[in-house]
Structure formats: structure tokens, C-alpha cells
């Protein structure tokens, strides 16, 4: 049996060359983000990367504070909301890692995403700032179309016709076609050199299960990346996952790294 388990995140990302296309998930909140792989790639330093992910503008509340302090100054009220006791600050006050750290670190030349901003109106994201400075090329894609394009990449399709974005500015540069009385736009598949996946458990064959709303783009990324690296809470023996409940078949997973106990999950 091929060994897919890597001991450290550093080793798992060591061979990612400059110019790679990386697919990775980020959506609202820390759930489902491969934070340790992102941090390892920041440390590794590969440049001229293309990132593909749902919300590449996303930064945590604490991240927003830090980022704003180092750039455009204070965010009215954010500090108070983070410091306040209760549920809202539990979300906003989390300090977690998002793909934005790669953008801030100057490693990214292109971003394909559905959301370039932060989740707080009026707070500019590192991605938006880099786009305005001309440092990053941005392609904005509707969220469901982005998910489907990644699936199409994994599925070996040449493209698909979607009704989303017809007769909006999004259709510029896209082929519009009427099929049986309805207009559609031609969408092309997305593939990646490396996919970063955050899962709950892996078995030694690479079969993965996820947790709740953290599943999201992760299983799609696994199918569309030439090399898929999964960070997981637990690695178990084949047979310990319910075969009816496996979400990502092991065939799609090349490398597995266990997240240290006690690390941010």
C-alpha cells in the first residue's frame, strides 16, 4: 500500500513550485479552511501563485484588526465588537488563517473567486487592495458557477452551459447560447496543480469524511487537483470509516497530514 501520510505540513507542501495553481477553500468562518497547509505554504514561499477559492477576500475579525492597523487604519467599532462578551465576538474574535495571508505575503499573481471582499462592509480586503494596486489579476465568478467549474475540472468535461449571469456584465467575454428557448453562458472547467483540503478523518487509503458545514468546496477541490493534500483531525485504518458515509473516495487524495492535538482547528 502506498504511503500517503506526511509527518509535517512543511514536508507536504515542500515541492510546490513557483507559478502553481492552488485550489483551497474559504467561506464564512474558520470551518473547512486548510489553515495549516496555508501557513506552511506561506513559510515555504512559492511565488506567482494562482489561487482558486470561494471567498478569497475573507479574513478573520482579529485578522481584520491586524491588517487594518498595518495599512489603512482603524475600523470603527470592530475592536469593541470583538472584545464584547458573547456569541458574536466568538465568531468575529477568532484569529484564524485564511488564504489572504498568501496575498499579503506577495505570493499570488491571480485570484479566481466569488467574493473578493471581507465580510464586513467598508473594510477592504488584502485581495481588493492588491487588485487596486495592480498587483493581482482578479476573476470574479458566481459562487455556484465556481463550484460547478471545479467539479467539471475534476470530471474531465470541456465545459458546460449555465443560466447564471445571463444579461449581466458577467456575460462579457463569455459565449451566450440559446438552448431550447433559454439563454446560457459557456463556462470552462477549473483544475489545479495542488488542492488543499480540510477534512475531519482520513483513513490510510485517503478516504475522507468531513464535519457539517465545513464540507463545502473541499470534496470538489479533491477531484480537480493533480495533487490533493488533506489536513485532518484523525487518521484511521481502512475499514474504520463507514463505507456508505465516505464523502471523498481515497483515489482523489495524495497526501494526508494530521493536525496536532490542541492546534487551532
Amino acid at each position, binding site marked *: 500500500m502506498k504511503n500517503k501520510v506526511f509527518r509535517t505540513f512543511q514536508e507536504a507542501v515542500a515541492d510546490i513550485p513557483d507559478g502553481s495553481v492552488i485550489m483551497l477553500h474559504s467561506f464564512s468562518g474558520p470551518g473547512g479552511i486548510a489553515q495549516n497547509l496555508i501557513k506552511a505554504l506561506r513559510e515555504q514561499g512559492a511565488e506567482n501563485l494562482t489561487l482558486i477559492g470561494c471567498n478569497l477576500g475573507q479574513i478573520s475579525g482579529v485578522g481584520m484588526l491586524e491588517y487594518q492597523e498595518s495599512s489603512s487604519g482603524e475600523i470603527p467599532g470592530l475592536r469593541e465588537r470583538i472584545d464584547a462578551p458573547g456569541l458574536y465576538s466568538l*465568531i468575529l474574535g477568532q484569529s484564524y488563517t485564511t488564504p489572504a495571508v498568501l496575498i499579503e505575503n506577495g505570493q499570488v499573481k491571480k485570484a479566481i473567486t466569488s467574493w473578493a471582499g471581507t465580510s464586513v462592509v467598508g473594510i477592504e480586503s488584502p485581495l481588493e487592495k492588491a487588485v487596486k494596486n495592480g498587483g493581482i489579476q482578479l476573476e470574479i465568478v*458566481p459562487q455556484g458557477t465556481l463550484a460547478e467549474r471545479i467539479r467539471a475540472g475534476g470530471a474531465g468535461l470541456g465545459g458546460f452551459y449555465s443560466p447564471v449571469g445571463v444579461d449581466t*456584465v458577467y456575460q462579457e467575454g463569455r459565449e451566450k447560447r440559446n438552448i431550447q428557448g433559454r439563454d446560457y453562458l459557456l463556462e470552462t472547467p477549473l483544475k489545479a496543480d495542488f488542492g488543499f483540503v480540510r477534512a475531519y478523518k482520513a483513513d490510510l487509503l485517503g478516504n475522507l469524511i468531513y464535519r457539517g*458545514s465545513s*464540507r463545502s468546496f473541499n470534496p470538489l477541490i479533491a477531484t480537480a487537483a493533480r495533487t490533493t493534500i488533506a489536513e485532518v483531525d484523525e487518521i484511521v485504518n481502512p475499514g474504520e470509516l463507514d463505507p456508505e458515509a465516505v464523502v471523498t473516495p481515497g483515489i482523489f487524495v495524495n497526501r494526508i497530514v494530521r493536525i496536532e492535538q490542541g492546534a487551532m482547528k
Partner: protein
Amino acid sequence: MKTRLDTEVIAMRVAKEFQDGDCVNLGFGIGADAASYIPPDKTVIFHSEQGILGYGRILTEGEEALADFNLTHAGGKFVAPQPGMCFFNHADSFVMVRGGHLDVTVLGALQVSEQGDLANWSLDPAGRLGNIGGAMDMPVGIKKVIVAMEHTTRDNRIKIVKKCTLPLTCPRCVDLMVTDLAVIEVTAGGLVLKEFAPGWSPEEIQALTEPTLILADDLKEMEL
């Protein structure tokens, strides 16, 4: 200045539109709060685009112990688990959306036109940057599109217009608008004023609305 409805009341009025058994995507903004006003005799199943169907209520302050970072809705708030919920990936989630399997979506808007055109994703007329998210997918695929918004902008500019000047999210998609002043239906014949907020006259609402409003036969004060 006269009192307008607050966002909570708008959310309550939106919730009245849900039928028993409806599957609903609320996005975020005013609509998201509609989840809190479902009458006990109705089952409404909520969809969140990152891959949940049937999540429970949104947790409120004091429920920190229940918070799970693997159980948040698209707006990033913690939700409670609920019997019968299930999870799936993001592509399957938009199979539901695009494939016409969801009954209702509630969206915010920057502008809505007389024809039901929706603009809600970019303040830049050229649509550079901007955050599309799921905004373009939802109104294309979901059966009934409800816009929940303030009737005018904070600096009192008109949002319900003859023709949108901001980049469209989706043409001819809005079915109903619930604002802080009125309930307005988009019909083939034009915009029909169905309900007005307490203390407001149809004429006053018309003055804050660019297209001519058709008065519904059963025009009435908004009830909750």
C-alpha cells in the same frame, strides 16, 4: 420624519410568505432574520449554500456552549442542529439552487426595476470588483424571489426604479418586494402595491417610487 418599519418587522412580514414545507434560502441581510418568525404550525426547511439543508434556529447570545464552527450558516452565524438536517458539497448545493429545487429566496437589493430586474452586487456601474457570491445563482434558479430592503437609500435616493443604473444581478427575476414602507408585487402589467406600512398613504409611497404603482384591489395596511 414619519416612522418606517424596522428590519425586524420587515423580516416578520417576509416570513408570512413561506408556505408549509417550503425550502428557503435566506442569504444574509434583513431576510436572514425571517427564520426567527416561522409560525409553529409550519415546517420551513432552510438551505445554506455551503451545503446544509434543514438547519435549526440561529443561536443567540448566551448559547456559546452550543456554538460549533462546523455548523454555521452562509452568513457566518452559528446555527443549532435540527433532526432531519443533512450536509452536502457546494456543487450539490447549487444543483438545488440552479436546478429549481428551492421554493423561496430572500435577497437584499440596491435597485429593483419595474420589470423585476435586480441589482444587488456592485455599487460600481461598470461592475469591476464587487462581490457576486451566490447572488447571481439564487434568483436564476429559485422559484420565488423576495427582495427585503429599505424602500430608499439612507440618503433618500429612490431604489425602486424604471430601469436599473447599477450592474444587474439578474434580469426579470423579482417576484415580491417587502420594504420598510410597502409590499409590492412584480406583475406582467407593472408593480402592484399590495400593502402599505401603518401611517403611510399610497401617495406617499408612490412619491418614493419611480415607476407608477398599480393599486391592488385588496390594497390594505400591512398585517403581521
